[in-house]
């Protein structure tokens, strides 16, 4: 009973941590982008303010059951995948459900979110939402392939599909996989650009246009849930890559540093790139990232 309670406590803590880190990173990104674009930009805690504002707003209208369920689906995706990722190398702290799933499972549960978002957006009847969803799903097919190839390369190289297993190998040997198999790392990083949906892959949400993309019909608590899910999800992705390629983190500070450095890659890449059209981004992902993925697998098999 006590362990169950501890588990739940741990899970909630993990969630809060992910929420906080994700929100902060989001705010920092806004700031950095603004500074690069020679604007002043919002403070780094702006996202917290936004979230609080959204949470306290009451929702006036809804479009039906899926409108409610869509955000819940998204949340399931980010939270459950968070539960299955070791946050720290020392598993005593946040064990959650680390040993119960593996990478394949994680890949699948991570795509659960977009589908949920798609369903919620579909119910609203806003054509812009649906257009955004189709773009998002198409783009997802694009980046999932190199991403999966990178992961397969790792799994093949180390004969395990478990995240904790891969992490343990890194911790014990002291070698990070980003150096052991740099191609896999490149493919994963390039794929993660798409996952974050920052520029140049931001046609899905189309944030610079007014009220377009999957979220355009969501406001208030719907948007709050989506936003927090997004933040958690960003944390999940970063932690996952850190776990898989950068030897994990033995404590929170290292985790923050590593994830932040990692996070800067899509952010800076986005700042300097103009937006791609959907098919351009798909072909982008099936270019170099796919090639790297292929090389990674070959490297993993033969070396």
């Amino acid at each position, binding site marked *: 009973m006590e362990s169950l309670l501890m588990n739940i406590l741990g899970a909630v803590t993990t969630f809060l941590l992910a929420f906080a880190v994700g929100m902060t990173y989001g705010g920092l990104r806004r700031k950095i982008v603004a500074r690069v674009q020679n604007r002043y930009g919002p403070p780094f805690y702006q996202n917290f303010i936004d979230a609080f504002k959204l949470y306290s707003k*009451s*929702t*006036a*209208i*809804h*479009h*039906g059951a899926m409108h*409610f369920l869509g955000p*819940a689906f998204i*949340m*399931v995706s980010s939270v*459950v995948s968070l539960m299955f990722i070791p946050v720290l190398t020392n598993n005593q702290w946040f064990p959650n*459900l680390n*040993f*119960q*799933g*593996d990478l*394949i*499972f994680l890949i*699948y*549960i991570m*795509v659960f979110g977009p*589908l949920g978002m*798609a*369903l919620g957006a*579909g*119910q609203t*009847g*806003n*054509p*812009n939402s*649906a*257009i955004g969803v*189709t773009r998002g*799903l*198409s783009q*997802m*097919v694009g980046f*999932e*392939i190199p991403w999966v190839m990178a992961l*397969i*390369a790792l*799994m*093949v190289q180390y*004969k395990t*599909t*478990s995240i904790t*297993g891969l992490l343990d190998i890194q911790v014990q040997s002291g070698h990070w996989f980003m150096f052991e198999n740099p191609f896999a790392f490149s493919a994963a990083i390039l794929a993660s650009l798409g996952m974050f949906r920052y520029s140049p892959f931001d046609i899905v949400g189309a944030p610079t*246009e*007014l*009220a377009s993309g999957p979220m355009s*019909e969501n406001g208030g*608590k*719907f948007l709050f*849930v989506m936003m927090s899910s997004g933040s958690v999800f960003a944390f999940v992705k970063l932690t996952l890559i850190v776990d898989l390629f950068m030897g994990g983190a033995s404590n929170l500070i290292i985790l923050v540093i590593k994830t932040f450095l990692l996070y800067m890659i899509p952010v800076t890449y986005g700042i300097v790139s103009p937006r791609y059209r*959907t*098919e351009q981004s*798909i072909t982008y992902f099936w270019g170099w990232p796919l090639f790297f*993925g292929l090389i990674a697998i070959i490297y993993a*098999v033969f070396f």
Partner: protein
Amino acid sequence: MDIINIILVIFFAGALITAFAAKISSIVQDILFIGTILATSIIFFLNINTNTETIINLSHINLTLGLTPLSLYFAFIVFGLAVLAGFYAVGQMQGKKKKGYFYFNYLLSIAAMFGILVSKDLVSFFIFWEIMTWSSYLLVIYNGENVQKTGIKYFVLSAIGAYSMLMAIVIIHSLTGSFLISDLISGFNNMSANMQILIPVLLLTGFGVKAALMPLHIWAPDAYSNAPMSYTAIFSGALSKMGIYGMVIVFLTLITKLPQETLIRDIIAWLGAITAAISTLWAIKQDDAKRLLAYSSIGQLGYIVVGVAIGTPLAMLAGLFLAFMHGVFKSTLFMVVGAIEKQTGTSNLKEVTGLIRKMPWTFIAALISIIALAGIPPLGGFVGKWMLYESLITSNHYLLVTLVFFSSTAAFLYCYKFLFGFFLGQEEKEWSHVKEAPAIMVVPMLILSLISVVLGSFPQLILKPINSALSYYSLPDTYNNLWKESMIFNKWGDQVALTPIVYGVAIVFIVFAVFLFFKNRKTSRYVTTKDISTSGEVPKEHENLTFKENFFQPFLRAVEPAMKRQMDKYMLAFAKGLEDLFDFTRRIYNGNGQTYAIYAIIFVIILLLLSNNLFS
């Protein structure tokens, strides 16, 4: 009489009586139809026994019937779907013409599938296979649309498959002197190397047709979409599994004994994966839900073929599990389309829209099945997909797994298109009259969706019979090894525990759904889908807010090169060319009696000239 015979006799008698009951009354026909299915299923489920064997003695051929654990597993699929789709069919066929024709062929094809499964010798296997083919052919052309194109295409492809199988059967008989499958298995080692290749290839061709494997799949989109949906549920759900069933036997018993084992396995697996990838792309392109699902079926069967072809214990588990799951969710989806078609009169995704509030139960069934199809945890589809990927990775098929993964990810696109097209989006006035389908149609769908949900948390329900089926063909026991209760492992010992996953997903989902619901329920009100924020403007009445055209245009533009070449077109062109050739050659018979006489003289002269060579 033996149970198997009784079931078959009931089926055949029931089919005939049902067909002729049209003279009496429509209700009686329905009752007889349902009665036949229920009676046979009840007899079957109450008397499951894999030990009995019935031998029907003919003068030179003995037909041996009996169940094996593997066929028992497939019989579950067949009978389960037959009953549910049967009830559904009664609902769907209300007020339609040619009910007797439909019921007759429906029952006959179920009987034939059962017959295939209980056949222990190749002749009865082939007999039932052919009965299945023609009864399903008659149902494919039931709607009378494109009968010459769709129907003939289906039949020709089926005939190619069946005849290559027949060729294999007679060759086997000439080599072993027996038609028994067990004799084939035991005598396979003594055959010459050529025959050892030829026989499996021929058999696989035969099964590949029904399993819609790559170059032989061209019948499937048309056939699946033209048959009545209540039958397509069976067609795609159970009938295609007969091909899988045959493949499983071939791979488990024959291919393993070959020196070229890995080569054949790889070829078939790659064919399966390519099938899956290409047909997924085509499914994304379809605007008709039936065709979308048809292509999706081909793709799903491709996964199953991959699993079966790879043939490691885990891959076999995956293939067979997916076979069951595909039967469950794909028949649900076909039923959904059927229900929508019955209620709205069309199955075009471009026309129908916004049915979620009109047909909520259908939507739930569709949603669950789509999630299962997409392989997203915690539903049953995930278990199969997981095992498939793990088996591919652990057996060193890295590019194959990438390809499979690609098609499985791309499948999300058509999944969404299906759900969005029918249920989500704008609620147009045109469909405001639509009502939920009758209960007799909805309940089977819901039961099937429930199965999808249950299997996601308790895969052992299905893994146990699969395990006994596999151990019958002397594969190592997989219990404790690859699965244990609701835990599944791979060869490297990595595991996925479904129970925590299901709990986790359920808890998170409920927490947030409840949160959103209770926080918003009081304050918010429902508004129609016309009342949306289009960039801050209020949309006017005449403005089109429905997004239907060119749904995945950007994606399709990106994958265009892969879709340029269509096997279908090549094959049709080939058939057309052949027919024209024959049309030309038949001019030998030019109508002039004298020419015929000249032919005769030429014939004699040729024979005389060749006589030295002919009669040495």
